[in-house]
C-alpha cells in the first residue's frame, strides 16, 4: 500500500495493542490503570449489552464475526487416504468486535495443572510430536490465575479431588452459578462409579460486582452475547473500565495489516486500515513504544509473517522459521445422553425440562491415565465437561426434516418428529478435552493465492493431528458414555474427533528458552525484538487438557506486569 497516503495518528502512545479479546484486554486494563497511554486497535465495532439479543439469526448470519467472503481462511485437513484437502472456511472467526470471541464464550473455565508446564520431562517424548517444557512453571502463573478469578469474575466452588491443582486461596471469590437438577443426578451417578465429580468454574458472575449485573440465567449463553454483563468478556470485565481511566483509546474498525520495525529489529509502528463509516478504509499508522499482538492464534502468526523488515526478512521473529509453527487445537470428542421423558415420572421429567440454570460439572479422574495394558505406562489424559449445548431450535427443527437415512420427511410424520424431539426428550452433552500434540503437520502460513478484502494474503491453516491424541480421546469418551449410562439416559453415545476446534485454537507462536525452537521468550516477547509482545493463546506450547481462556487471561495479566516493568514509571516514559 502506498505510504504517501498513510494517515498518521497524532497521539503518542506508550503501548499499542492489536486485538481487544481475552489476550488484549488485560494488558490494556493494567497499563491504563497504571497511568500509561494505551491504544487498542480492533477491527470490529463496539457492541454491548443493548445489542446482544437471544436471536438465533445472529449466529446463523455470523453477525459480530468476520465474514468468509471478505476474510477467508484456507484450511488444509488430512484425508483418510493420506492426502490433504484444501477448503476456504470462515469457521475460525468466533467473535470480531470489541472484546473478541470472549463475548460469545460459554466461560467454562479450568486452570492447567503443574504437569502441563513440563509435559516433556514429566511424560517423555512421543515420536513425531514437538513436545516442549514451558520456560515458566505453574507457580509463576498461579498468582495470575487467582487475579483472573477476581478481575474477570469467576464463580465456582473448590471441591477436593485427586487432580485438583494447587491454589493460593481457599475458594473462588464468587459462589457457583445456579445448578440444573441434572447436576444432582450426575453427582450420584459419578460417585456410584467411584469418580470425583466437581462443579465447573464459570467466567460468569453469580452476584453483581463492580457495576456488572449477576447472571440472569437466560438459558442461552455460549455462542450468544451476554445482555447482563455477567459473562466475563474482555469488554464487560476490562475494557469498559479502561476507557473510564481517560488513558485508553479504542480504535474500532481498525484492521492492522503490518507492524513496522527499525534497523535494530524493534517494533516502531503499526499500519492499519481505518474502516470506520466515513474513513473509506484509509491506510493509517500509529506509533507506540511497546506493541502487543493479540489477534487470536493464527491471526497473530499471520500478522508477524506479513510484517517483514530490514532485520526480519521472513516476517518478524522468523529467523529460525518458528512463526506459525506448533499450532494446536483441543483434541477430544463429544457424547450425549438422551432421556426419554415419557419413561420418567412426571416430577423427574419436569425437572429435566427446566431451562436456565447450568449443568456445570466436570470430571478429571483421567487427567493422568495409568493404564499399562492400554498405554504401556502413565500418560497425559484429559477432562470431561458436562454441559448444555446453546439452544438453536431452528437449526434443530431443520435437521429433523431428514430421517436416519437422510431421506426427507414431511407432513404429519415431520410434525410428529418435531413434537417428540422438543417435548418428549432431553439431550445432555459432554465434551472431552485432551492435548492436541504439536506436530510439523499443524501450523499457519501465508497463502500465496488467496487475499482478504484489503489485498493481504490470508492465513493457511494446516491441521494434522497426532494418532496418539485420538487414542487418548477415545479412551476418555468411553468413560463419559459410561457416566451417561449410569445416570439413566435411555440412549447414549460418544465420538472422538480429529477435526479442529475452531473456537479453541492456540499455539503458533510458542514461548521457550531458545530462539531456534520457539517464537517468543519467557516474557512472550518476540525473539529478535525488545518491545514486541504476544499475549493471546499463541504462546502456549501445549493447551493442557482443558479449554484455554483462563490461562490466556492469566498469562496476559502476567505479561502486563512485565511490560509495566520495562516501561518504568508512567511519567518517565
Amino acid at each position, binding site marked *: 500500500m502506498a505510504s504517501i497516503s498513510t494517515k498518521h495518528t497524532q497521539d503518542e502512545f506508550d503501548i499499542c495493542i492489536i486485538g481487544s479479546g481475552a489476550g488484549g484486554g488485560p494488558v490494556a486494563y493494567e497499563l491504563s490503570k497504571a497511568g500509561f497511554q494505551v491504544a487498542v486497535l480492533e477491527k470490529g465495532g463496539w457492541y454491548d449489552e*443493548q*445489542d446482544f*439479543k*437471544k*436471536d*438465533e*439469526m*445472529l*449466529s*446463523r*448470519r455470523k*453477525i*459480530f464475526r468476520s465474514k468468509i467472503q471478505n476474510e477467508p481462511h484456507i484450511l488444509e485437513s488430512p484425508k483418510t487416504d493420506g492426502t490433504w484437502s484444501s477448503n476456504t472456511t470462515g*469457521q475460525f472467526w*468466533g467473535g470480531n468486535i470489541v472484546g473478541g470471541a470472549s463475548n460469545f*464464550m*460459554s466461560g*467454562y473455565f479450568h486452570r492447567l495443572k503443574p504437569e502441563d508446564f513440563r509435559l516433556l520431562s514429566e511424560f517423555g517424548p512421543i515420536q513425531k510430536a514437538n513436545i516442549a517444557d514451558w520456560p515458566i512453571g505453574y507457580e509463576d502463573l498461579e498468582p495470575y490465575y487467582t487475579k483472573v478469578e477476581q478481575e474477570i469474575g469467576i464463580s465456582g466452588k473448590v471441591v477436593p479431588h485427586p487432580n485438583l491443582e494447587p491454589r493460593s486461596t481457599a475458594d473462588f471469590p464468587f459462589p457457583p452459578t445456579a445448578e440444573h437438577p441434572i447436576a444432582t443426578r450426575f453427582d450420584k451417578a459419578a460417585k456410584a462409579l467411584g469418580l470425583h465429580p466437581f462443579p465447573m468454574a464459570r467466567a460468569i458472575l453469580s452476584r453483581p460486582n463492580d457495576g456488572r449485573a449477576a447472571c*440472569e440465567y*437466560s*438459558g*442461552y449463553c*455460549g*455462542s*450468544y452475547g451476554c*445482555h447482563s454483563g455477567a459473562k466475563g468478556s474482555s469488554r464487560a470485565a476490562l475494557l469498559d473500565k479502561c476507557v473510564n481511566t481517560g488513558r485508553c483509546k479504542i480504535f474500532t474498525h481498525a484492521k492492522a495489516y503490518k507492524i513496522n520495525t527499525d534497523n535494530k529489529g524493534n517494533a516502531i509502528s503499526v499500519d492499519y486500515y481505518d474502516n470506520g463509516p466515513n474513513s473509506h478504509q484509509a491506510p493509517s499508522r500509529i506509533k507506540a513504544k511497546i506493541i502487543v499482538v493479540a489477534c487470536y492464534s493464527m491471526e497473530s502468526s499471520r500478522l508477524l509473517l506479513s510484517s517483514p523488515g530490514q532485520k526480519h526478512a521472513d516476517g518478524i521473529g522468523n529467523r529460525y522459521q518458528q512463526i506459525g509453527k506448533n499450532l494446536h487445537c*483441543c483434541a*477430544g470428542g463429544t457424547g450425549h445422553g438422551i432421556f426419554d421423558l415419557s419413561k420418567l415420572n412426571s416430577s423427574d421429567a419436569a425437572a429435566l*425440562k427446566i*431451562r436456565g440454570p447450568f449443568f456445570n460439572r466436570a470430571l478429571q479422574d483421567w487427567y493422568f491415565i495409568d493404564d499399562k495394558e492400554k498405554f504401556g505406562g502413565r500418560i497425559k489424559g484429559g477432562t470431561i*465437561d458436562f*454441559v448444555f*449445548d*446453546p*439452544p*438453536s*431450535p*431452528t*437449526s434443530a*427443527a*431443520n*435437521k429433523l*426434516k431428514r430421517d436416519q437415512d437422510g431421506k*426427507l420427511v*414431511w*407432513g*404429519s410424520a*415431520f*410434525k*410428529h418428529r*418435531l*413434537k417428540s424431539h*422438543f*417435548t418428549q426428550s432431553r439431550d445432555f452433552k459432554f*465434551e472431552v478435552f485432551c492435548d492436541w500434540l504439536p506436530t510439523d503437520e499443524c501450523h499457519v502460513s501465508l497463502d500465496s493465492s488467496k487475499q482478504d478484502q484489503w489485498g493481504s494474503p490470508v492465513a493457511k491453516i494446516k491441521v494434522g493431528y497426532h494418532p496418539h491424541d485420538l487414542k487418548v480421546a477415545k479412551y476418555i469418551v468411553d468413560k463419559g458414555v459410561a457416566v451417561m449410562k449410569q445416570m439413566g439416559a435411555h440412549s447414549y453415545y460418544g465420538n472422538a474427533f480429529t477435526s479442529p*476446534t*475452531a*473456537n*479453541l485454537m492456540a499455539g503458533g507462536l510458542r514461548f521457550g528458552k531458545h530462539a531456534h525452537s520457539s517464537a517468543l521468550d519467557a516474557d512472550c516477547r518476540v525473539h529478535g525484538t525488545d518491545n514486541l509482545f504476544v499475549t493471546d493463546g499463541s504462546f502456549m506450547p501445549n493447551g493442557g487438557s482443558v*479449554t484455554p481462556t483462563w490461562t490466556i487471561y492469566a498469562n496476559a495479566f502476567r505479561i502486563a506486569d512485565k511490560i509495566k516493568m520495562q516501561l518504568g514509571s508512567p511519567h518517565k516514559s
Partner: protein
Amino acid sequence: MLASITACKPVILQRATAIQQNPGTSANIPENLVLSTAQRTLIDAVQMQLFPKDGNGPDAQDLNALAYLEGALQDPANIEDGDPAFIVKGCSWLNDMAQRSFASDFTSLTVIQQDRVLNSIASTRAGENWISLLMYYLTEALMLDPVYGGNIEQKGWRWLEHQPGFPRPTTGKTYLDFT
C-alpha cells in the same frame, strides 16, 4: 465450550448447480422478487402439504409461513444464495409434473394426488433440494422469533413447549439491523 455448527441451508452447492444447469433462471428473475399470485397459491398449497392441518399443532398457514417466506426472499443473503430464483423455478417443475401425472395444475389436485406429485419431484436431486429449501424456511417460520413475521402469537413455540431466551430481538434490533 466447543462451538457447535449452526446448521444452515444444507444444499447450497447442488442448488447452485441446478440453477447453472437451467440457464436463464437466475438471470431472468429480478433480485427483489415478489411471487406472482399463481406462485403464491402454489407455494401455499405445498407448504400446507409439508406442514398440514392434522390436529397436531399449528399448520403452515397458522404460522404465516407464506408471508414469512416472501419476507425472507427479500433478505440480501438469501438472494445471494440464489433462493428466490430456485424457488420460482421449482414452481414450474411442480406444475409440469402435476400436468404430466394428472393433467391438472398442482393446486387443483386432491391432497393425495399432491402428495404423489411431491414424492415424484423429490426423487430428482433438484426437486428434493427444492422441497428441502421450502422446509428450511418453514422451520424458520416455526421457530424464529415472531418479530420476523412467522411463528404468529408464538404458536410454534407454544406447540413445542419451547422457552425462548431473553431479551428477545425487537424491531430495530433484529439481525438485519446489524448487517
